[in-house]
């Protein structure tokens, strides 16, 4: 029997006190680890989705909402903007704009968003088809990796989109032409994995047919009798030559960020019915808001860890009182003072180690459960199955706390006066 086994037996001899110590420690460690996991993965999502986008132009409303809906696809769009107003930014050859990608949102298939855009959008996120190809004409879709996997979409599959972002049979565009899957993207880790991409024109066509059915045909003049199978009509004209159309937003990449681009943003906000929002600024704002909650949780976690350290200290210290005879006895049997110190230190370290292991296990299981919930709610993929470097640092911290809590009892144990103790009993 070595010291480690002896420490272990001493701990398991008091199962309730051991349980309390481990549960407390695991709670503290688990909470910190969960915060780390969430924070890292959110940061990753935010960074990946930034994709070098400098400005988002959309309908007036909350700038944060515009960013969340157009870049992260987790909130409702602020509304639509008319192509007339937007086309200044879509036209090639703008002096400041390197790239402008139009987005049309508002439809979905089984909760996964259908985005009408152009081929620059997947290019922006460096998304390439794993199977099949990019869409070439309206009603062809290329599907993000996660969406394809969850919806079990394969090349050649056809489906009907529905209005809005919730699954509701009453909102299905059953009068419109079906979308046909022509490609499936490789996973990118960005929001595009959760999207179904198609040409902007597809969205228009669906809604034209839709409004036609409802007797609002006056709006869609030259489409009133069009055949959805025949795409040889004005929808194939470049967007900036369209009139009377609307899109949801435009993602912009500037050639360079400078005073002129800042002025352009201000001018959009002041002089048009549109708003321009900077993703980086909005995300910093969002993180600031979330950060308050995270900070409070972090403080709570640290308090719990502190209390668990104290609890380990108290239980070791009080067990020392009960065990002073057996410690003296071990000295009589040949144990050096150092051995007794090591024995108690090991008990503290063991508690910390087990508490850490249980805590990490809990946080990763918790993260996985949370990830599934978020997948359902936001179509965002998180995972509890990755481990972080910070968790190794956390292990060192945990062992440090176990050691610190055990230090005074351990030194006390090493100083056990054999003769006095045994003479008492």
């Amino acid at each position, binding site marked *: *029997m070595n010291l480690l086994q*002896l420490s272990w*037996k*001493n701990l*398991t*001899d008091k199962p309730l006190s051991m349980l309390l110590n481990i549960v407390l420690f695991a709670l503290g460690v688990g909470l910190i680890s969960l915060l780390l996991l969430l924070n890292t993965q959110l940061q990753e999502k935010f960074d990946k989705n930034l994709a070098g986008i400098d400005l988002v132009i959309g309908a007036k409303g909350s700038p944060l909402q515009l960013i969340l809906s157009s870049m992260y696809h987790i909130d409702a769009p602020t509304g639509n903007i008319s192509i007339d107003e937007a086309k200044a930014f879509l036209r090639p050859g703008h002096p400041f704009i390197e790239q402008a990608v139009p987005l049309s949102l508002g439809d979905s298939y089984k909760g996964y968003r259908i985005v009408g855009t152009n081929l620059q959008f997947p290019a922006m996120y460096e998304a390439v088809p794993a199977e099949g190809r990019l869409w070439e004409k309206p009603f062809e879709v290329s599907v993000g990796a996660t969406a394809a996997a969850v919806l079990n979409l394969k090349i050649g599959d056809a489906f009907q989109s529905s209005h809005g972002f919730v699954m509701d049979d009453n909102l299905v565009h059953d009068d419109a032409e079906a979308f046909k899957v022509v490609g499936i993207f490789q996973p990118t880790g960005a929001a595009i994995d959760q999207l179904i991409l198609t040409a902007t024109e597809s969205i228009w066509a669906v809604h034209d047919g839709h409004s036609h059915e409802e007797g609002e045909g006056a709006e869609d003049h030259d489409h009133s009798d069009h055949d959805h199978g025949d795409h040889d009509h004005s929808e194939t004209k470049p967007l900036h030559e369209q009139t009377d159309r609307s899109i949801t937003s435009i993602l912009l990449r500037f050639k360079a960020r400078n005073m002129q681009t800042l002025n352009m943003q201000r001018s959009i906000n002041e002089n048009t019915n549109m708003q321009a929002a900077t993703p980086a600024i909005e995300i910093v704002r969002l993180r600031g808001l979330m950060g308050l909650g995270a900070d409070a949780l972090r403080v709570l976690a640290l308090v719990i860890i502190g209390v668990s350290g104290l609890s380990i200290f108290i239980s070791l210290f009080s067990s020392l009182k009960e*065990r002073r*005879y*057996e410690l*003296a*006895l*071990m*000295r*009589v*049997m*040949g*144990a*050096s*003072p150092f*051995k007794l110190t090591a024995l108690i230190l090991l008990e503290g370290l063991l508690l910390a180690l087990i508490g850490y292991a249980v805590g990490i296990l809990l946080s990763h299981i918790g993260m996985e459960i949370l990830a599934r919930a978020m997948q359902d709610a936001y179509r965002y993929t998180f995972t509890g199955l990755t481990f972080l470097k910070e968790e190794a640092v956390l292990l060192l911290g945990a062992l440090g706390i176990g050691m610190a809590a055990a230090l005074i009892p351990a030194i006390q144990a090493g100083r056990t006066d*054999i*003769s006095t103790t*045994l*003479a008492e*009993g």
Partner: protein
Amino acid sequence: MLHAKNLEYTYDGKHILRFPDIACGSGEHWLLIGQSGTGKTTLLHLLGGLLSPLGGWVQVADTEMSSLSSFALDRFRGKNIGIIFQQSHFVRALTVEENLVLAQQLAGLKPDRKRAAELLYHLDLGHKLHAKPDRLSQGEQQRVAIARAIINRPNLILADEPTSALDDDNCREVIALLEREAGAVGATLLIVTHDGRLKEQFSNRVTLQPNRV
């Protein structure tokens, strides 16, 4: 085997306890008898190397204990001296058998479960091998304590008041057991007691006098 000369000890720095010289031959059985307050336990601790004397020296198996480093003394004690205390204490998280094995290991010897088990069977404790010590009766605990004291085949066995709480029959039995087991491992046995009943059974006796200076 066991020699002590001019032993002195002080608890408070003012009153010095002086002890008679002791010289026990190998395998001899001795009785150290004295009334309460004569420093019996102090002397036992000095002889067992649990206390360092103020003056004088103790020699066990030709080794002078004050010449050993603290670490070496711990090891020496574990290997060469078996002590049976008035109250039996054990490592409570361990079974009876594990307590014996621990005694072997702490003395720096190889764990020998077979010897531990044999010894316990021999002392009629075979059925308690895997019991926790606090589940045992007083008498059983004392026998386990004796087993632990002799498991490493020590040169010297010290017993502190082993009979004080026992009736006459049990008293005789325990002394017989101690003498038999000490004999079995060829150890010198020194029993410290105030129990007058033991006087007749030992021809080798040292008597402690009240000796405060």
